[in-house]
């Protein structure tokens, strides 16, 4: 019985195989499978190395530009205005002055990608889907 038939019978009719045949078949399958896994991942390793080299050579700022632009579009001014309004009034209250006397000019938001996304709202959605 050749190996190919042996593997076939291991999945269709293992009861008919002797213990020795099972051992042989199991060993063959184990070695074969492990070799294939290793070969696939090693080829992947070479390919990733190749990719890294190729991209490093051609590296430009093009992609980054697109991404940045995307992020900027998402930032909603209305949002910051809300925050500014809240904070101004809080400060005003605590200092005993009226809101209109205080101008919060520039709030730098760190780490704002995710929340901004969530707030981008209907307009942004219509822009993209459909």
């Amino acid at each position, binding site marked *: 019985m050749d190996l190919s038939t042996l593997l076939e019978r291991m999945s269709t009719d293992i009861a008919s195989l002797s213990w020795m045949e099972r051992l042989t078949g199991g060993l063959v399958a184990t070695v074969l*499978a492990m070799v294939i*896994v290793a070969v696939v991942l090693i080829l992947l390793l070479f390919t990733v190395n190749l990719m890294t080299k190729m991209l490093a050579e051609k590296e430009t700022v093009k992609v980054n530009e697109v991404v940045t632009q995307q992020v900027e579009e998402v930032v909603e001014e209305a949002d910051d205005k809300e925050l500014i309004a809240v904070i101004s009034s809080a400060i005003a209250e605590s200092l005993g002055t009226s809101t209109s006397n205080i101008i919060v000019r520039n709030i730098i938001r760190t780490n704002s990608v995710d929340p901004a996304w969530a707030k981008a709202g209907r307009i942004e959605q219509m822009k993209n889907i459909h």
Partner: protein
Amino acid sequence: MGQIIVEFLQNTGFAAMTWQQLVMIIVSCILLYLAIGRGFEPLLLVPIAFGMLLTNLPLAGVMDYPDTSLQFQAIQTQEAAINAQNGLFNARYITNIPGGLIHYLYQGNKLGIFPPLIFLGVGAMTDFGPLIANPKSLLLGAAAQFGIFFTFLGAILLGFDAQAASAIGIIGGADGPTAIFLTTQLKPELLGPIAVAAYSYMALVPIIQPPIMKALTTEKERQIVMKQLRVVSKKEKIVFPILVTILVSLLLPSAATLIGMLMLGNLFKESGVTDRLSKTATNELINIVTIFLGVSVGATAKAEYFLVSETLKIIVLGIVAFGVGTGSGVVLAKVLNKFLKDPINPLMGAAGVSAVPMAARVASKVGQEANPSNFLLMHAMGPNVAGVIGSAVAAGVLLALFG
């Protein structure tokens, strides 16, 4: 009236319960305790354990098949007669009595739909940066799959057929969705014990792995410091998932579905232009699928199929798979160190079994015990995500050989 009451009592679950069902109900309560009281993988163990509970409640029928009929239309035209001679009939498939709820939820597993959708979400949560920065991690991710095939051999020798042995071996991949996907394709009747074993061992990584890691390494090896990973560019991260999909699917077409969905999710994340889809894949979609998958996986653990000697063998073989995978990763790292200029901390090899990101954390923690100033987490994430690819590839190989 008395007779009716007697009839009714005979139709309660108490009257119909077998001791096996009682045992399974207790087991499901223990799993609930482990999940809720001890915090072991609760997002999956709670649905699984609850599904197990429901399926073992006598007469509840949550997994019942529907009662269905076919209604053939009368053949009244010549065209219909010709079609009929070619085996084509106008007919409608009708449900007379609906099946149990979980019967329907289970179709998502049975037809191989849920695990790839989980992979879509996992891909959208995964950062392959550490792997791209250090592609040698892929070797460790390959080595850690040895546990799968070692256990396959053991299962064959214990009398399982090749399909069952494959499904048992894949427990060593430490990857729930992959285990469920392969099992539903090759040996659906073993889904209960295999899924329960896979998720349990994944939850027990912090207990199972450290002794093996310490036994196979010297204190000095564990202290090895690795140099910092380079920064990976956005472009590399975008090209990587496309490249992996094409290469792996061409080499091993049977791995295309799992790898493809993993990489599509990752592309949603890394492309930076599909945040809506990435967010949905990592939140609502994966949560809904997790609930359905968990409950229906648990519901396959019916007493009559679960409380058999095979289950015990599967549980033992599963932990062997897990341990051998951990060990072979560590050993390969030590072997590689004989050839490499910049040595790898061999603990990184243990992270290759996947169980993302738990195995990476455990490896990094054991490393820090040996050398408190050594931060290995990012280095461990490389083999860790390589292990996800590795076990999907291993599943593809087993599908190709025995599917």
